[in-house]
C-alpha cells in the first residue's frame, strides 16, 4: 500500500502539485446479525484513498475506492490554500489484539445465539429485535510531500443489541459494547445489562427528585460525560473556560481529571499518528479540577499533538477526540460509592441517546433507590442536566474505567454525582 501511495504522490507532483498528501486505508470486516427470524453474515472488504493537493492559494480533495496509482485524474482546485504538517519521529508499540483474526462465521453467530438464549432464560418471551456484532481490521498509510511516511494497523469490534421485552409492554432497550477484537466482547455481561433494564422497567416505579445524589455505572456515566466533550474540542482555552463558566480555570474538585489520549494502550482508536501524520499523545484537558489545554491542531498551537482524525478514507481530517475519559481513582471501588450513599439512586442502565431541550439535556435511566448504602427498590426516570455544570457536580470517581463508542470512545468509571435532577419521562 505504501508503494501505491508514493506512486500517487509522485503523480501529483508531476501534475504540478508540489504540496500533496495521500492517505490510503483498506480493511476487512464481518457483520453478524440476528433479528426478525433471520441470521445473516456480511463480509466486507473496503479499500479507498484520498489525496489533498494544493499550494498557498488553491487546493482540492479527491477520494476514490480501490488503491491509488500513478494515473491520477485530479479535479480543478479551488481557492483556499493548503497547509500540511511536517514529518515527526514517533515510537509506537502495536496492541497485541490487533493481530487477532476476525471472528469466524460460526463464532459470530454462536455469540448471538448464546446471548439470545441467555436473554430468554432470564426473561421468557423477550427477544432480539435487531442484534449486530461487527468485527473489523484495517491498515492505513499516509505519505506527504512534507516527508510524512507512516503506516499503522487498527482493529475494532462493536456490538449493538436492541432488545424487546415481552408483550404487551414490549419494553425496548439497547445495549452496546466495544473491544479491540471480537473475541474480547463479553456477550453475557452485555445481556445481563439488558436484563437489568427490562426488569427495572417492568417492576420499577417512576421517580422525580430535584438535586439528587446519584451513583452511575461507567456506561451511564460515559453518556453523561459525552455531552461535555465539545467544550474541549477545537476551542481555545478561553472559549472552553467561558463555556464551562470557569473563568478562573477551576472546573471541579481535585479528584476531577479529564484526558484525551490518541494512543491509549488497548484503545480502539489508538494510532501512532492522527489523520495527517502528526504523532498522537495524551492530553490533559482538566488536571486535578483545573482547566488544562483543549484539543487543537498543530496549525493552531505550536507543538500540539495529533488530533485531526479521519473517520475513513472518504473524510477530511478534522479535530476530534479519540479516547476522551475521566481519570479513574484506583483507590475507590465502585460498590463503596453505593455503600457510602446515605440516600440517593444507583443507575445501572440508560437509554442510548440524549434528548436536548434548551440548555438542558436529559437521558432515560434505570436503577435502584438507595438508602443507607442498600438498594431498596427498582426505579426509573430521566436525568436532566446542564452540560456546562455537570463536571462541577462530580464528587467521586471509582476505579472501573470503561468506554462507550460514541463517535469518539468516551470513557468513565462509576461516578458519584451530587445535585442532578431526576424528571419524569415525557
Amino acid at each position, binding site marked *: 500500500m505504501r508503494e501505491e501511495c508514493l506512486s500517487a504522490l509522485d503523480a501529483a507532483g508531476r501534475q504540478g502539485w508540489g504540496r500533496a498528501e495521500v492517505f490510503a486505508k483498506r480493511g476487512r470486516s464481518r457483520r453478524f446479525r440476528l433479528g*426478525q427470524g433471520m441470521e*445473516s453474515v456480511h*463480509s466486507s472488504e473496503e479499500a479507498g484513498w484520498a489525496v489533498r493537493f494544493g499550494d498557498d492559494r488553491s487546493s482540492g480533495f479527491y*477520494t476514490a*475506492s480501490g488503491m491509488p496509482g500513478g494515473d491520477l485524474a485530479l479535479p480543478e482546485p479551488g481557492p483556499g490554500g493548503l497547509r500540511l504538517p511536517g514529518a515527526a519521529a514517533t515510537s509506537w508499540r502495536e496492541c497485541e489484539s490487533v493481530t487477532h483474526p476476525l471472528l469466524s462465521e460460526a463464532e459470530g453467530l454462536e455469540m448471538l445465539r448464546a446471548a439470545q438464549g441467555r436473554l430468554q432464560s432470564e426473561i421468557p418471551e423477550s427477544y432480539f429485535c435487531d442484534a449486530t456484532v461487527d468485527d473489523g481490521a484495517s491498515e492505513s498509510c499516509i505519505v506527504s510531500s512534507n516527508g510524512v511516511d507512516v503506516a499503522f494497523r487498527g482493529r475494532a469490534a462493536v456490538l449493538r443489541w436492541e432488545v424487546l421485552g415481552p408483550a404487551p409492554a414490549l419494553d425496548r432497550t439497547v445495549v452496546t459494547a466495544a473491544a479491540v477484537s471480537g473475541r474480547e466482547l463479553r456477550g453475557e455481561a452485555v445481556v445481563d445489562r439488558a436484563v437489568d433494564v427490562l426488569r427495572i422497567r417492568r417492576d420499577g416505579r417512576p421517580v422525580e427528585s430535584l438535586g439528587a445524589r446519584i451513583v452511575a455505572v461507567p456506561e451511564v456515566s460515559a453518556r453523561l460525560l459525552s455531552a461535555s466533550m465539545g467544550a474541549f474540542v477545537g476551542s481555545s482555552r478561553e472559549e472552553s473556560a467561558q463555556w464551562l463558566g470557569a473563568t478562573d480555570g477551576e472546573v471541579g474538585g481535585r479528584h476531577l481529571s479529564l484526558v484525551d489520549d490518541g494512543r491509549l494502550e488497548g484503545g480502539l482508536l489508538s494510532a501512532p499518528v492522527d489523520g495527517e501524520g502528526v504523532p498522537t499523545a495524551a492530553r490533559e484537558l482538566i488536571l486535578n479540577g483545573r482547566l488544562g489545554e483543549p484539543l487543537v491542531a498543530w496549525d493552531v498551537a505550536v507543538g500540539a499533538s495529533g488530533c485531526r482524525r479521519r473517520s475513513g478514507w472518504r473524510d477530511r481530517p478534522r479535530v476530534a477526540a479519540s479516547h476522551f475519559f475521566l481519570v479513574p481513582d484506583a483507590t475507590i471501588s465502585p460498590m463503596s460509592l453505593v455503600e457510602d450513599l446515605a440516600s440517593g439512586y444507583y443507575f445501572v442502565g440508560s437509554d442510548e441517546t440524549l434528548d436536548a431541550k434548551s440548555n438542558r439535556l436529559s437521558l432515560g435511566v434505570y436503577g435502584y433507590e438507595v438508602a443507607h448504602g442498600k438498594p431498596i427498590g427498582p426505579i426509573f426516570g430521566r436525568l436532566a442536566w446542564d452540560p456546562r455544570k455537570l463536571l462541577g457536580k462530580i464528587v467521586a470517581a471509582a476505579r472501573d474505567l470503561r468506554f462507550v463508542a460514541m463517535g469518539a470512545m468516551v470513557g468513565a468509571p462509576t461516578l458519584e454525582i451530587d445535585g442532578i435532577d431526576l424528571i419524569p419521562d*415525557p
Partner: protein
Amino acid sequence: MNLLDTDLGSICRCLDLVSADPEAIVDCYFERSEESGLVAGAIANVEVHREEGFAVRLVAGDGAFIASRDRIDGDTFLEALRRTARRMATGMVPTPRLRPSPWPRAEPDEAMPVFGAAVARELRRRRLAFPHRLVVRHHRRWLQVVGRELVGDVESEAYFSVRTESEAGRWGALLPDLGAEAASRVARALGAGFRARDADSPEPGRCDLVLGAPAAAVLLHEAAHALEIDTLAVTGNPDSAVGFRFGSECLDLLDDPAAAPETVKRRTDDEGVPVLRRWLLRGGLICQPLADRRWAAESPSVSPGAARRQSRHWAPGPRSHHLELVAGTVSGRELVAGVRHGLFAAEATRGWLDPSTGAFELSFAHGRKILGGELTERVGPFALRGKVGLVLGSVAAVADRTVVSGAGWCAKGGQKLPVWGTSAAMLLEGVDIVEGQRDA
C-alpha cells in the same frame, strides 16, 4: 453511463452455481457513485469522491450471506461468490471477464458555482443580507442488479444536497436541480430562519397545527416507516396490518418511485425488481406495506419492489423512495383560516419514530402563531410529539396543491438514504406541542 464492460450472461451463470435451492435469492449488486461538493459563493474546498464495487448475496431459508467489495474485477467477484456460496470448489468456474467502464472526467456541475450567488440574489429580493455558509453537493449514483435469471437495466440517480449555516442555525434540503425555484426555496428557508432567530418557543400544550408541504413530506416519511414490513414485524404479523386504520379518512398516500423527480425516478428498486405505484394508505386504511423480496416471500399479501440500500456494504431493506400524497380540496389559505388558535410550520428539521411503541416526534426550527385564522408572530423551536397513529388520525384536511420536494435524508437503521415526496400542506387538529431545541 454504462456501468460494466462485460458479458452479463457469464455473471448470471456464475450466480446460478451459488445455490441449488430455486427459492433462494441470489444476486449481485454493482454500484458506482460520485459526489462532488463545494462551498458556494466561491469555488473553494472543491471535493470529488468516487467509488465503485459490488455485493453478492444469498438469502436462503432463515439465513442471509453477503460479500461486498470495493473493486470490480473477475477475480474479486469469484472470491466474493465463493464466500457467499460457502460450498463452491475452487476451479469449478472460469473467472468471468468483468471490468467497469471508464469514469468520465470529474467536473462539478455547472450550476453549482453560481448557486450561492443565486441564493444571495433571492435573499436581497427579500431585503435580507446576513453572513451564511452554503455547502452544495452533487450526488450521482449508478447501479445494476444481476440475478440468476435476471439482468436489470442500469439505474441512475442524480440530485443535489444543500446545507446552510448562519446565525439562525443549520438547515438542509435535497433538491433535484439547482434552478431558480431551488434558489428561491433555499433563500425562503434561510430568510425565515433568520427572521425567527430570536423568537421564543411557543407554550407547550395541545393546539392545531398547519404544516407546509415540505414539513408534511417529513411527517409522511416518518409515518411511512411504520408501513415498512420489517417495522410492522417488530411487534406483530405484518399481514394482519392490512385494512387497519392508521390515519384519518382524508389521507391517501402512495409510494411511487417511478413518479419521482426526473433525475431520481426509478424503474426498478435496489434488488432489480420493478417498482410499484403502491397504495400505502387509502382513506387512512393500510393497503400495501413496503416490502422487499425476502419479506414478500414470507407474506402472501405484499409485493416486493421497495428495497433500498445505502451502498453495497449494506443489506437491502424495505423503504419508501418517493411518497405521494393525494391532494385535498381546500386551499392552503383556507387551512389557516380555519384555525382559531394554533401554529404553522413550513419546514421540519427532523423526524423520529420508535417502531416498537409508535412514539413519534417531528421537530421544527421555527414557525408562526395562528390567531383567529391569521398568521401572526414568529415562534422559535418546537416539536410535535405523539403516537404516530394518533398524529395521522388528527389530520383534518389536506390542501389542494401538491409540491415536489426532497423530504430529506433518512437514517433508519444507520443507512443514509435520500427520500423524496410530493406532498401538500395539511391541518392537524389537537396535537401535542413540546419545547424544541435551537440548532445553533
